């Protein structure tokens, strides 16, 4: 989509894509290209991102073009488009699915790599957003506002709360166990590998096939539990 050369529509690809992603792509068939989402969309107001156009491109079979685009990563996930859409198309959810597709196809890792530590925190500590604050500006402002050190533990204490939110040891063990058997741990490791490997070569059609085989994996995820 960021490309400017004329592209051939690939309608023959669309039927392959339709059944991916929990039916979200199929839902796009309802789109009547009215543009109401675009008028509502904060990302469209600021960039060349255009959900209506993106939907049309997917329906035309050009999924690869979408998943390799940078625009796919511009969506704010605000759901304003969904709230506005006369056909109840949940586009942000579709975007989420397409982003997985993008990552599996080797395109989007760069956009999510900053999140990976959060996922690791979830695994290790049961929380994705942890307490320690490193930004000196934030701490400084807080110090000025609260009359404490500006450190969260002190502010919590001031309110009579424990200095840190606790997650019980049992809970942590459970979370880790469940993460292992459900395949989530493996997924996170895969993500790390992808991050370290960097952007991959872009053999598009093959990538689409990869997305499809991921779907197959979904149906089979309880199997991994048996292996565990």
């Amino acid at each position, binding site marked *: 989509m960021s490309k400017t050369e004329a592209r051939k529509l690939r309608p023959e690809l669309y039927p392959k894509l339709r059944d991916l992603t929990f039916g979200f792509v199929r839902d796009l068939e309802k789109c009547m290209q*009215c543009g109401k989402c*675009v*008028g*509502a*969309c904060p990302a469209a107001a600021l960039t060349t991102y255009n959900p209506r156009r993106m939907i049309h491109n997917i329906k035309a079979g050009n999924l690869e073009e979408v998943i390799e685009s940078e625009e796919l990563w511009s969506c704010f996930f605000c759901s304003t488009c969904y709230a506005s859409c*006369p056909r*109840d198309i949940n586009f942000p959810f579709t975007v989420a699915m397409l982003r997985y597709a993008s990552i599996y196809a080797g395109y989007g890792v760069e956009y999510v790599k900053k999140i990976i530590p959060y996922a690791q925190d979830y695994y290790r500590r049961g929380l994705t957003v942890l307490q320690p604050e490193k930004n000196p500006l934030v701490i400084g402002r807080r110090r000025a506002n609260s009359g404490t050190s500006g450190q969260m533990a002190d502010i919590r204490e001031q309110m009579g709360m424990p200095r840190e939110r606790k997650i019980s040891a049992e809970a942590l063990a459970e979370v880790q166990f469940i993460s292992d058997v459900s395949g989530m741990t493996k997924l996170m490791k895969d993500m790390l590998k992808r991050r370290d490997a960097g952007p991959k070569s872009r053999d598009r059609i093959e990538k689409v096939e990869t997305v499809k085989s991921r779907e197959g994996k979904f149906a089979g995820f309880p199997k991994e539990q048996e292996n565990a």
Partner: protein
Amino acid sequence: MRKVGVFVCHCGTNIAAMVDVAKVVEESRDLPEVVFATDYQFTCSAPGQDQIKDAIREHNLDGVVVAACSPRMHEPTFRNAVAGAGLNPYLVEMANIREHDSWVATDRDEATRKAVDLVRMKVKKVAKLEPLEEIRLPVTKKALVIGGGVAGIQAALDIANTGIDVLLVEKEPSIGGHMAQYDKTFPTLDCASCILTPRMVEAAQHPRITLHTYSEVAEVSGFVGDFEVKIRMRARSIDLEKCTGCGDCLEKCPVKVPSEFDAGLADRGAVYRPFPQAVPNVPVIDREHCTYFLKDGKCGICQKICPTDAIDYSGDDEIITEKVGAIVVATGFHFFDAAKYTEYGYGAYPDVISWLQYERLTNASGPTGGKLKRLSDGKEPETIVFIHCVGSRDPSKGFPYCSRICCMATAKHAVIARSKLPNAQIFSFYIDIRAAGKGYEEFVRRAIENEDVQFIKGRPARVLSKNGKLIVRSENAFTGRPMEVDADLVVLTNGAQAQDDAPELALILGIGYDQYGFYTELHPKLRPVETNRAGIFLAGMCQGPKDIPESVSQASAAAAKALQILSKGELAREPQVAEVNAMRCTGCMDCREVCFYTAIEEDEFMRRKVAKVNPGVCQGCGACVAHCPDGALEMKIFNDEQIHAEITGLFAVPSAGAAGGGGAARE
């Protein structure tokens, strides 16, 4: 036993080339019922028909089988032929040995065998046929038209002009419908009241039309040609005869209610008439708001004022019963509730208005005298935005269908805006422009090219209010970029939907309606004004969104259909109808559930409840017959015995030795 004659046609070589006609004749003769069998080159020709007539007379035949082409082609021909010889026309059957046999077979023996089978089956059926008479129904020469909009008025006038009496029932105090609210009409921009009011007056003064305004249909019974209707005439509280329409009472009523006719832009009293040219020009007292009725006789001002003593608070609703032969339904539409679009701020921002409000704002006889101004501060708008498809093409908030008229009405509104405000900026945001009609596309082009209206593709997402301006946020799909317009006035084209009470009226009338409440026609292409109930016809918006030209054409079509019934003294129709055997019927009424035409009613037989088929209404589909758990229903021409005779006839090969029988014999 029946004496059946068999006539096998060659159809030139069409049949004879593939079927051994002589053999078919020969085999037929072996059947015990057959007393005469012969063949002929062209049985449908005049000499061919004569051959049949002669045989009937000569051999005293009381049943005829013509083995020839499809009955869909020549059944009427041969029915007429046998009738010509004095035989009941329902005692003839056709064996289809051309379309179903000679034309599709590849083997002469096989084709001949099949022809023999088909003839035998028909002979067995004919043996079970019974003489029937056409059904004749009396007709009451009077029509009922429900709804007095432009469609209802047209239908009433068309019928009345042929000299037949018409009752025109209108719910509101005046006839006229929605068209009476408009200033101009697309695509010609003629003045709506100039063309409508004369017709309203004509209807009111027509010697053959009886107007019942402020009235509703409460009950309909009977059937085509002979309906009985109960009409509830709401208490008007003002004597139609005494009132001169002077309007003195209107001035003094202390009650103020938003006027429905002015779309809430002006007030009316509890005693009111919707608009000055109302027909009849006699006010009503709206008892839900009148102080006299709300507070036990307090007020009474209007009565004191009335110079002709026309006001009477005592009357009650009245029910009258009338007989009619046909009914035209023309109850029209109403508007989608724009307040459901909170993103557009209707109801929250005074300068976001509905298109009906816009019609009233631009109407020379409207509350502003036709001056187009903002409701908030009375200023002339410098920028006007129209938003299409509000409530239409929107299954999320409204309806999935296209309201069909609003693209055109919006083009009209934009052109009217231009004529009033030469310097204004006018935007019209649409998804697609639907302008399929004579002169319609040209009209839209005129708005774009000559009147400088900006049509922008994109459905707006939000209307925000900021410092007295309205910000319209939308995509401009031509550029693929979002855009904003600072508007002074936003007009929502909140589409058309079926009347809220449409399903209730459908129930009273026994007609079908779709999931949106629009009444369903019998066939979308070939029977567009008929309903599933014979004798009830549709006209105008009550059947689906349409513009005035279409509403009026449909009204004339409905009138013509009604006149097909009303112009006759009697209705005749094929006796292919169902009939209940009351002895067997247990009164479960399961059959009523499956009858799409509501032809089945409850009846009493030997002090038991039983079902009864109304032959005037039954269309002869046979669904009920197959459905009845007790085998109590039968159907003429296609009764169980007759169909069984055909089936068993296929396997009833005359004698074991005879060649060429059905499958069973070939075992």
